């Protein structure tokens, strides 16, 4: 019965109720909607970074990070891969790569690049280069001097497919190696900086050129599945490290490779929850005021109810229930609108091409797709519900305290 009373009481003043409902609904909808957009941006950032040859897990020589030269390489990578393969989930892709700094020369220009020796077939579904849009073609298995560069680099050097370039880098014995390559293909990527930096050559050519035998500078592992931004890879990396304790390598997941980004993601979570609080406080004032007004309007009524014998605690619960209904309806509408909006947006996403250069600077994708996590959703709703009930306590107590004598005198 009290539930019915509470519900009907709200609608006694429809305009007032509708107005506060609008406040709650806009607040909740914006919380969820904004959260999904920002999370989408974060995921995009992480995906870009991982895709950008970082991979999910990377195995390298411990000194390579501070001193990225071929001196710090992994001997006998093939046997290492055999050892760890059983530890990885099905669908994981493992590749060997050689990554070194180098300089690319044409007759007119030169530029600093990172030379990457790869096996193109293995890179498919593994890193961005495996699936990048390509003009021309990749080098075949027996191609000894093919090279694939980015479109931005092609333009910078002022050259074309099928022309020659010279790559210089430092070999294992410390001397400078230089070798001529022919441009077989031109790739495109999300960021023009990537296109200007990475040049790809056949793995075996890199090995010969730099006198590396059968070695590699890194082993990259890409794991199946999405939502990598949320998954904790440390159990896997630990088990891999244990397996490889007799080798001079270090196993890192992307969070360890990009600690700054990791910290940024965590900061972002905190920021989002603070934002929720802020929006709630903005709503909160309205909720308190509205329920308070409703209570004061019905002062006589409460006094009468008390005179008739209704216990104060029941009055308290009745008013609190009114607040609950306000919150519930507002949240319901807010959630609905937010989810519909997200659904509509998940087709095309938000296009940031107008801010292309800025977006590149931070490594965000150009198109943001919203991402709804259960966590964000729940937190938003719980914040509003719990805090809403907490602020609703004040008017409810007021209502329960009216004595018949003091209220009867009021109009």
């Amino acid at each position, binding site marked *: 019965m009290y539930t019915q009373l509470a519900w009907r009481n709200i609608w006694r003043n429809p305009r007032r109720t509708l*107005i506060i409902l609008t406040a709650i609904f*806009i607040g909740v909808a914006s919380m969820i909607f904004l959260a999904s957009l920002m999370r989408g941006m974060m995921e995009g950032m992480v995906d870009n970074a991982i895709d950008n040859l970082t991979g999910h897990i990377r195995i390298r020589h411990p000194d390579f990070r501070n001193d990225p030269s071929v001196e710090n390489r992994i001997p006998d990578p093939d046997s290492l891969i055999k050892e760890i393969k059983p530890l990885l989930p099905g669908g994981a892709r493992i590749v060997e790569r050689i990554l070194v700094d180098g300089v690319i020369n044409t007759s007119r220009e030169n*530029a*600093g690049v990172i030379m990457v020796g790869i096996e193109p077939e293995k890179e498919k579904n593994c890193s961005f280069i495996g699936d990048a849009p390509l003009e021309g073609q990749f080098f075949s298995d027996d191609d000894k001097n093919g090279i694939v560069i980015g479109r931005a680099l092609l333009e910078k050097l002022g050259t074309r497919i099928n022309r020659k370039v010279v790559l210089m880098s430092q070999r294992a014995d410390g001397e400078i190696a230089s070798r001529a390559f022919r441009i077989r293909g031109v790739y495109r990527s999300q960021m023009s900086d990537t296109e200007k930096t990475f040049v790809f050559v056949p793995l075996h050519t890199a090995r010969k050129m730099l006198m590396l035998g059968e070695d590699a500078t890194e082993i990259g592992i890409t794991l199946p599945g999405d939502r990598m931004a949320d998954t904790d890879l440390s159990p896997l990396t630990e088990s891999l490290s244990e397996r490889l304790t007799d080798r001079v390598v270090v196993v890192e997941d992307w969070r360890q490779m990009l*600690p700054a980004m990791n910290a*940024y993601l965590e*900061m972002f979570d905190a920021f989002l929850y603070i934002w929720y609080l802020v*929006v709630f406080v903005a709503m909160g004032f309205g909720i308190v005021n509205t329920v308070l007004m409703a209570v004061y309007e019905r002062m006589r009524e409460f006094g009468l109810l008390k005179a008739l014998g209704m216990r104060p605690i029941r009055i308290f619960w009745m008013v609190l229930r009114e607040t609950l209904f306000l919150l519930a309806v507002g949240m319901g509408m807010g959630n609905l609108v937010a989810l519909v909006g997200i659904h509509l947006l998940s087709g095309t996403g938000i296009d940031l091409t107008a801010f292309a250069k*800025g*977006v590149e600077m931070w490594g965000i994708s150009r198109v943001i797709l919203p991402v709804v996590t259960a966590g964000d959703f729940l937190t938003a709703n719980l914040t509003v519900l719990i805090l809403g009930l907490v602020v609703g306590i004040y008017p409810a107590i007021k209502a329960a305290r009216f004595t018949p004598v003091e209220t009867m005198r009021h109009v």
Partner: protein
Amino acid sequence: MDDFFIAWRNVWRNPRRSILTMLAVAFSAMLLVFMLSFQFGSYEDMINASVKLNTGHLQVQANGYIDKKEMRKVVPDPGAVIAALEKLPGITGISPRGEAFALASGAGRTRGVMVMGVDPDREKGVSILPGQIRKGEYLKKGDHNVAVIGTLLAQRLHVGIGDELTLLGQARDGSVAATIVTIKGIYRAGIDAFDRSTLQMPFIDFDEVFAMEGAAHSVVVAADRLRTAGRIGKTARALPALAGLSVLGWEELMPGLKQSIQMDLVSGIIMYLILIIVVAFSILNTFLMAIFERTREFGVLMAIGTRPGRLVRMMLTESMLMTSMGLGLGILLGAGITLFFSVYGIDLGGAGEMLAEFGIEGRLYPRLSFISLFSGPLLVLVITFFTALYPALRIPGLKLVEALRAV
């Protein structure tokens, strides 16, 4: 005038309700002041970090150099450009530079580096880098065959003070440029990407090694304030000595930065608007209640001859009084919090590392400015005004007889 006092007293007829309304407005105002100060403070920090380290406020370059950094695109007579610019007010430093890409070989390591030819005396006026030397000394006029490099680059190349570096690159005329330099100083730039990849040598040496024939790739200009740089740029473009050359401001020199700032600003504005709208709806009820409670009162007042317009104005005055007091409180609180943090800074922890790559320290300092202090509250004022308008405009529509009979 009496209406004003009546409005004031009306506000306090229901103290609790009025205070809640004021607090709602104060809260949003305070938040806006703080957040905007924070945003603008970080923007300025980011811009200044790059400007003061490397790009300067303006640069004079050959047309098209910014898009494609070819050795051949030069400023042929930097001396004339400098002489012309020196006459302009508001400029605190002018320095010519040459830039070339080269391979640097140290004791067993080789890397590609960006070689910068700088004027040792003038460079101090446009960049803080000369002051960032951690080991050894910066370049001096008259030095030959020496260079200064970044800490991270020194680490990568396994070299220190006194070691030699071989530089191998391409000169302006396409021939091979080669030289050996001794490391005189090592700096900590603050922007990691810069620190890892640059080397500075005296302009005279650069000129010789890279066959520049006295030309420079850019003339860097420092202004006394970020704001005046735009105006100086305009004046500079008109100078005859600069005909055929481009004058670029920081926005063109760092388009990525400008756009990230724009992006951040836009998303910030969207969030603030949502917040203000929520607050507006929150207090709409207060304003409405204030009218409906007093319907009888309005009826009586109109019956004795008060014009509806006067009542509308009185209602608006009441609403605006509450709003203004709320805004005043909010501005004070917001300014207080901002000032507190502008001294102590906000620690970003690990995320600070990511920003350190861009030259911003790990602590962010919000900065109070005219815009950050007043634009947020102004927006709140405008939106609240319209919120108050809706209920107030219902007064003229009241039917006198019904109003008198209301409870």
